[in-house]
C-alpha cells in the first residue's frame, strides 16, 4: 500500500449546491501533494472531510488502507486557511493547550514546544498574550502547533498567506524536512510557483469535480506538445525559414541581435531534424523545450472545462 490517503468516489451536498461530485484522489505516502483549484471548487470541503470536521454524503476515505475514524485525528496535523488563536491567551499556554487537544502529553508538549519556539525565535514571547504578536509570528505559532505532534499526514491550506519572503523560505524548508522525515503533506494553494517548487503530485479540482491528477512531472510532460524555443544569431534572412510539413514557426522576436523563436515540431520529426534545419538559417545559441508552467496548465484546464 503506497497511498496514505485514498479518496474513493466522495460526494458532498450542501443545502444549495454540490461541493464535491464523485471525487477520487490517491495521495502517495511521503509525497507533497498539491490540491489545486479555483476558489469555491471544493478543496476546503475535501480537506474538512479528511479531517472529519464534516462527513461526506457518499464514498469513503481510507487512511493507510483503513476506513478513516476519529482515532486518526491524532495522526493528522491541519493548518486551516481560516486560522486564528485566542487573542487574550498567553502564547505558550495556548500552544500547550492546542497540543494537548491533539493528544500530546503536557510534559512532552512543553519540551517540544520550547525546542520549536527556540528554532523560530519565539521563545521570548512565551508568556506574552497572542494579541501582542505580529501576524507573521502568530502564523509561526500556528505552524508549530500543526506539526508538533509529529503527524503522518500534514494538511496545509494556503500556508504561505501572511508570511514575508524570509519566513516563507523558513516554512518551505521545514515542510521539505518533514517530508524527508517520512510525513505526507497535502498542500492546498493558489500559489503555483510554490507548487512547482515543492509538490510531487497534484490534483486539480474545478466545480466540485476532479479534473486532473498525477505526478507533476508527468502532467507537465503531457502538456508539453513538442514546442521548442531557439535562440539564434547571424541570421541569413529576416525570418527563420523552417515552415514545412514537419515544422511550424509560432513566433519570432529580435532582441539585441539575438533572434528568439518558438517552433512546433509536427508529427514525423524530432529535435535533431529541427536543429539540422536551423543550421541553414544561422548560428544556434540556445535551444530548449517549452514546458508549460503549472499556472498555464491550471488556467488552461479550468477555462477549458467551463
Amino acid at each position, binding site marked *: 500500500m503506497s497511498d496514505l490517503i485514498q479518496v474513493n468516489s466522495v460526494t458532498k451536498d450542501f443545502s444549495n449546491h454540490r461541493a464535491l461530485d464523485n471525487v477520487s484522489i490517491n495521495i502517495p505516502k511521503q509525497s507533497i501533494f498539491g490540491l489545486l483549484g479555483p476558489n469555491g471548487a471544493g478543496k476546503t470541503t475535501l480537506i474538512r472531510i479528511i479531517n472529519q470536521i464534516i462527513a461526506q454524503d457518499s464514498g469513503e476515505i481510507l487512511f493507510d488502507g483503513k476506513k478513516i475514524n476519529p482515532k486518526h485525528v491524532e495522526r493528522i496535523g*491541519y493548518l486551516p486557511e481560516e*486560522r486564528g*488563536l485566542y487573542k487574550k491567551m498567553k502564547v505558550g499556554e495556548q500552544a500547550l*493547550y492546542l497540543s494537548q487537544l491533539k493528544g500530546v502529553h503536557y510534559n512532552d508538549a512543553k519540551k517540544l514546544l520550547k525546542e520549536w519556539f527556540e528554532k523560530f525565535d519565539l521563545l521570548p514571547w512565551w508568556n506574552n498574550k497572542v494579541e501582542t504578536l505580529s501576524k507573521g509570528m502568530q502564523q509561526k505559532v500556528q505552524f508549530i502547533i500543526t506539526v508538533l505532534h509529529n503527524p503522518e499526514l500534514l494538511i496545509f491550506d494556503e500556508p504561505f498567506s501572511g508570511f514575508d519572503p524570509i519566513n516563507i523560505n523558513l516554512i518551505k524548508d521545514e515542510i521539505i524536512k518533514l517530508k524527508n522525515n517520512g510525513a505526507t503533506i497535502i498542500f492546498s494553494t493558489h500559489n503555483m510557483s510554490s507548487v512547482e517548487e515543492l509538490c510531487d503530485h497534484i490534483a486539480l479540482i474545478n466545480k466540485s469535480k476532479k479534473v486532473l491528477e498525477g505526478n507533476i512531472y508527468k502532467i507537465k510532460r503531457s502538456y508539453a506538445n513538442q514546442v521548442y524555443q531557439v535562440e539564434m544569431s547571424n541570421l541569413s534572412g529576416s525570418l527563420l525559414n523552417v515552415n514545412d510539413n514537419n515544422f511550424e514557426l509560432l513566433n519570432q522576436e529580435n532582441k539585441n541581435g539575438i533572434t528568439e523563436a518558438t517552433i512546433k515540431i509536427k508529427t514525423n520529426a524530432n529535435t535533431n531534424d529541427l536543429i539540422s534545419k536551423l543550421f541553414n538559417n544561422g548560428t544556434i545559441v540556445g535551444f530548449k523545450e517549452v514546458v508549460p508552467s503549472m499556472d498555464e496548465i491550471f488556467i488552461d484546464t479550468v477555462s477549458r472545462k467551463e
Partner: protein
Amino acid sequence: MFNKVFIIVKREFLSRVKKKSFIVMTILGPVLFAALITLPVVITKMSEREYNIGVVDDTFLFYDRFKDGNNIVYTNLHTNINDALELVKREKFDAVLHIPKVAFESPSTLRLITKDAININAKIHTENVLKHEFESLKLGARGIDSEVLRAIETNIDIQAVRIQKDGMEETDYPEVSIILGILSGLLIYMFIFLFGSQVLRGVLEEKTSIIVEVIISSVKPFQLMMGKIFGIAMVGLTQFLVWVFLTLIIVSAVRVAMPEMFEFASGQQVQLTTAQMLDSNHIDKQIGEVKHHDTMTAQVLEALSAINWYVMIFAFIFFFLGGYFLYAALFAAIGSAVDNEADTQQFMLPVTIPLIFAIIFAQMVMSNPGGPIAFWLSMIPLTSPVIMMMRIPFGVPLYEIYLSAFFLILGFLAATWLAAKIYRTGILFYGKKIGYKDLWKWLKS
C-alpha cells in the same frame, strides 16, 4: 476522548477564574452583600446624635405632649416665635416647632423651622405626635374619652399555621418565605443570564478569532461545546460558593468585632417602628413593643430554622445547574450562528422571554405558591428553575420537585440536542447573516 473534554473544561475554567474581573467580582460581591447587611447598622450608629427641637406653642395645648425619644429632645420655649428663630440661627436648637393659634382649625399653618436640612425622622415623629393629639382633642370635643381610645387600640398579627402530614401543626411565616423565595429566584435568574451570556460570548470569540477550525480538527464540535458549557458552570459554582462563604465570614466577623452594634441596632429599629404609636404613656408601650419585637426576632429565627435548608441548598444548586445548562446550550447555538455580537439580538429575545416571563409572574406565584400558575410554571423547563426556587421556601411536595427536575433534565437534553445540530454547522459558517430559515435547515440536516 473524555480526557480532551476535561482539557477544554480546564481551560474554560482557568482562563475565566484568572481574569481580574472575576477576582474583583468574587471578592467585591460578598463585601457588597456584607455592606448591605451591616452598613445600615453602622450608619444609624454613627448618625446617633440628639436632635433638639424647641417648641413654641401659641395655643398652649401641646406643651408637654412631646416626649423625648428616638434621639429627639423637645424643649418647651415659652417665648415668641421671633426669639425662638434667633435661637435656631445661633444653633442653640436644630429646629423650632411653631404651633400658631389657628393651628387647630387649619393644621397647614404648622411650621418646623430649621437652619440646616431637616431630619426626616424628627419631622415624621413630630407629625405623628401632633396627629395623635389633634385626633384626641377632636374626639374629646365630641365626647369620647381618651381612656376609651386607648382601650380600643388593638394589634392584630394572625399566626398562619400549616397542618403537617403527621398531624402536627407548624407555624407558617409567609413573609420570610417570600423574601427567601424572591432572593433565590432572582439569584438563579441572574446566574443563568450572567453565565449563559458568557457561553455565548465564548463561542462567538472562538468563531470571530477563527480558532474554531483548528480545535474541531482535534475534537468533535459537541465536545468543544460541552467543554465550554461545563467549564463556565464550574466558574459559576465557584463564584457562588465563594460568595456564600465570604459573606458568612464577613458578617460573622463584624458581629464578633462589634456585638454592641447589632444589639443597639435592634433597639433602634424598635424605636423607629413604634414612633408612630407614641402617646402620653409611650414608654410603657415601647417596652411592650420591645417584647413584641423580641418575639418577632424569635419568629424569624424559628421560621428560618423551619425551612429545610438541605432541600433549599440542594435544590438551588440543582435548579441553577439545570437551568444554566438548558439556557447555556441555547446561548451556545446562538453564538455559533452569528458572526458578531450585534447579530445576536434577534435570536436572544425569544430565548430570554421565558426567563423574563418567570420574573413577571413572580408576584402571582408568591401570592399563591400552590396555585395552578405556580405549579405549571414550575414544571415547564424554561421557567421552572426560577419559579421552583421561589416556591420551595413555602414548602413544595417532594414529588413536584422531582417531577420538575425530571422535566428540566428532559428540557436540557432536548436543548443540547438542538443546539449541537445548529452549533456544528454554525461555527464554520461565515459571511452571511443567518435567519430562522437557515437555522431550520441546519436542524434538519
